[in-house]
């Protein structure tokens, strides 16, 4: 006989074919008619179902203003899944999913709608066996966060019962400075306990980002070099080729630094620079990340070591692009940055004296995110000067997106009679050595939310630390000067190049 209160007898740590399936649960999406929901969330839910990772009876509830019936909502999910899902469409998977699709119509201040939501959840517990476990995904502009969480509290939807959970999932931006971030955290944590709040930074769901940890801590050949004795500097880049598109309302006043550096780039910096965590548990990881973020120091002269800029009219990949100030809905006097480059240092034994250059921007040469660890030159070269004239610095580049992989650059002799050493690249492409279609970041993150696995979600402390780093820079920018300009489709303003040139370095062309 099996032990009735022990572990599940059908599970065994050795049985690695069995995937982690989320327990009985449902997902409620606020702002379900938005772009994120249609392009990312709904397809990710379908892909999870298709991979057999969702529990039987999994339910998806949409909440929005639109006057839809359940069927209209199901139709919308169907269309979104057909168009955007990663895995092939299969009727039987859809049949499984559609049984748990519900729609609740209403505004965020509409008490009646939240009562309906409550009834819907109770009905799903009965009809689908979701067991009272629900995650609330707030895919809405941040100004609505307080309203929604308070409504959830008011209607008893956020009450944690003994044998079920209620979780909140929130998207960036987590505030626009330290103060507003703390305010937001206070509001959310008043209703949901800290371990039930999941902040989505979709970069952390990416396979390549998780691979930074594998690369550093599962191997022996990189870590010995990963310090000030060998590393000259580190460049972390996230470039987009698009402009602000239709996001003028959101973007103006926020800018590239708040939009990207505060979360994505500082997270990448933390993963690149942190010490080895004691384990791969969420607490151990967050401890190391907070420690290294706490050791980050700003440059003394903010004016010289930071650059912000706006894209001007130009040509981007064969298309004419207007400048930022000419975009629809942007104040022609706006000082918002669409490009930001900053130099940070990390005050600890491993990294003292090694600058970390972070840059991000819109309308740059191409869409790319990468971390480049650039090594020092060999202290002595037995070859004469002409032989190594074309040899650059060794580098290890982690390509986060697109074309995920790792490149190592080093010198090699050019075939021929004379001695000549030139840079070559050794390349590892994710798509080449592993699955052609690695899971989308949102798939991983939604599954982790349902499983309650907080590894890949930035915690409160990290968010506040990041604002502590960025706030003085933003304040300086507010008071001094105005953004530089760079033609759309180039790799940023001349000021950024000068910033590195003063240190005797130059930006990589990613």
């Amino acid at each position: 006989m099996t032990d009735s209160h022990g572990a599940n007898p059908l599970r065994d740590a050795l049985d690695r074919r069995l995937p982690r399936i989320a327990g009985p649960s449902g997902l409620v999406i606020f702002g379900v008619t938005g772009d994120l929901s249609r392009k990312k969330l709904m397809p990710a839910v379908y892909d999870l179902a298709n991979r057999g990772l969702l529990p039987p009876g999994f339910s998806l509830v949409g909440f929005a203003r639109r006057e839809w019936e359940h069927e209209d909502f199901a139709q919308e999910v169907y269309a979104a899944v057909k168009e955007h899902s990663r895995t092939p469409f299969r009727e039987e998977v859809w049949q499984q999913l559609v049984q748990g699709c519900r729609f609740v119509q209403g505004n965020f201040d509409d008490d009646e709608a939240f009562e309906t939501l409550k009834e819907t959840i109770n009905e799903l517990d009965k009809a689908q066996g979701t067991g009272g476990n629900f995650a609330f995904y707030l895919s809405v502009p941040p100004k609505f966060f307080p309203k929604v969480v308070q409504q959830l509290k008011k209607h008893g939807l956020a009450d944690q019962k003994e044998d079920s959970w209620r979780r909140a999932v929130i998207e960036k931006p987590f505030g626009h400075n330290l103060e507003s971030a703390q305010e937001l955290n206070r509001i959310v944590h008043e209703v949901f306990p800290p371990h039930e709040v999941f902040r989505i930074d979709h970069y952390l769901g990416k396979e390549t980002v998780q691979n930074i940890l594998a690369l550093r801590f599962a191997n022996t050949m990189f870590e010995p070099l990963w310090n000030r004795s060998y590393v000259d500097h580190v460049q972390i880049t996230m470039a987009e080729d698009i402009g602000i598109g239709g996001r003028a309302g959101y973007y103006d006043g926020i800018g590239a630094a708040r939009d990207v550096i505060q979360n994505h780039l500082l997270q990448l910096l933390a993963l690149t620079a942190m010490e080895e965590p004691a384990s791969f548990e969420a607490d151990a990881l967050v401890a190391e990340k907070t420690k290294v973020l706490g050791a980050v120091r700003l440059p003394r002269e903010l004016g010289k070591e930071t650059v912000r800029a706006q894209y001007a009219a130009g040509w981007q990949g064969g298309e004419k692009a207007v400048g930022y100030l000419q975009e629809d809905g942007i104040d022609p006097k706006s000082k918002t940055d669409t490009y930001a480059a900053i130099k940070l240092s990390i005050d600890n034994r491993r990294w003292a004296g090694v600058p970390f250059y972070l840059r991000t921007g819109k309308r740059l040469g191409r869409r790319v995110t990468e971390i480049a660890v650039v090594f020092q030159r060999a202290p002595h070269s037995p070859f004469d000067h002409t032989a190594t004239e074309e040899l650059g610095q060794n580098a290890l580049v982690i390509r986060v997106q697109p074309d995920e992989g790792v490149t190592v650059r080093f010198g090699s002799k050019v075939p021929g009679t004379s001695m000549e050493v030139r840079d070559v690249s050794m390349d590892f492409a994710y798509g080449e050595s592993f699955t052609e279609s690695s899971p989308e970041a949102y798939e991983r993150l939604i599954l982790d939310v349902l499983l309650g696995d907080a590894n890949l979600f930035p915690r409160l402390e990290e968010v506040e630390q990041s604002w502590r780093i960025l706030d003085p820079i933003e304040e300086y920018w507010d008071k001094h000067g105005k953004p530089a300009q760079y033609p759309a489709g180039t790799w940023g303003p001349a000021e950024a190049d000068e910033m590195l040139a003063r240190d005797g370095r130059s930006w990589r062309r990613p």
Partner: protein
Amino acid sequence: MKIDLTETTSSKINKALVEGRRAVGTPTSGMVLTLVIVTDEENAYDALKAANEASREHPSRTLVVIKRVSRSPRDRAKARLDAEVRVGTEAGTGETVLLRLYGEVIDHAQSVVLPLLLPDAPVVVWWAVNAPAAPAQDPLGALAQRRVTDAYADEQPIHELSARAETYVPGDTDLSWTRITPWRSMLAAALDQAPCTVTSAEVTGEEFNPSCELLAMWLADRLNVPVTRKVSDGPGLTAVRMESSIGAIVLDRPDGSLATLSMHGQPDRAVALKRRETAELLAEELRRLDPDEIYARALKFGVDRLGHGNGGQPADGQQPAAGEKAADGSDPAKPAAKKAAKKAAAK
């Protein structure tokens, strides 16, 4: 790009691989393993197609060993090796070499394969048909970390399971085991949801489908309760029923794609459980190359220890569902022969 070589050797094939790679412009490659497929000419096409699809997830060098039947005694004495080297778009994401073996070299296939293995990468051997009785003892199997057989393709699948159990060596695995991963995962999820004490179980599926026996043996081994194997018309596995302290837990899939999970006191729920293609099975098989101890335990539980049919009396492992057979009037003693006949008719 395709290079044909007749009456060739492994070193010439290696040279052709390098030339092929240069010509298509990918001098380095990210291949993670060597997959050796052992097959006859008849099954080679399907097996290679599945391997090419799986290579999208696991870029590999695929070596297809085709043992040719020679007609005359003189041909049989003469050894000959023909090869077809495919690089680039024709070979999925890796490289493929079809090796056609004639005459004496058939018995020395490992001498052809050994020089063609990727350096320092795992080797997987997959017998699409006619797996040897002891895979690890086979000269080709001995080269591999992982040996994949398919009891379903065998003439006497249930008997085959017993034979596999006897010769099991860590690293052996079988596609009939791979086929039931979604079932196992869903049953485990069902018990996650309602922790309870299972008192007995019943696995229903088509005859001569070793996956049913493996699932039954897995349940019996894990739960330590009597498990009965019942026969239905399929397709494949059709139902698993577990009696437990909280009532029956039933996973029922009549049509081979959409299943229903019913648990006492809970609403019925639809679960997608589609029967999978060989390519998907192979991709799952290549995902982990360490020994599958759970498979070993299920396999070694022994087909004989399962309860059978509707009568409930234990039947001899080589005569699945004797009672059922007798009921529909056919000869209960020769199910295997019947399957062989069915197979022959299908050709």
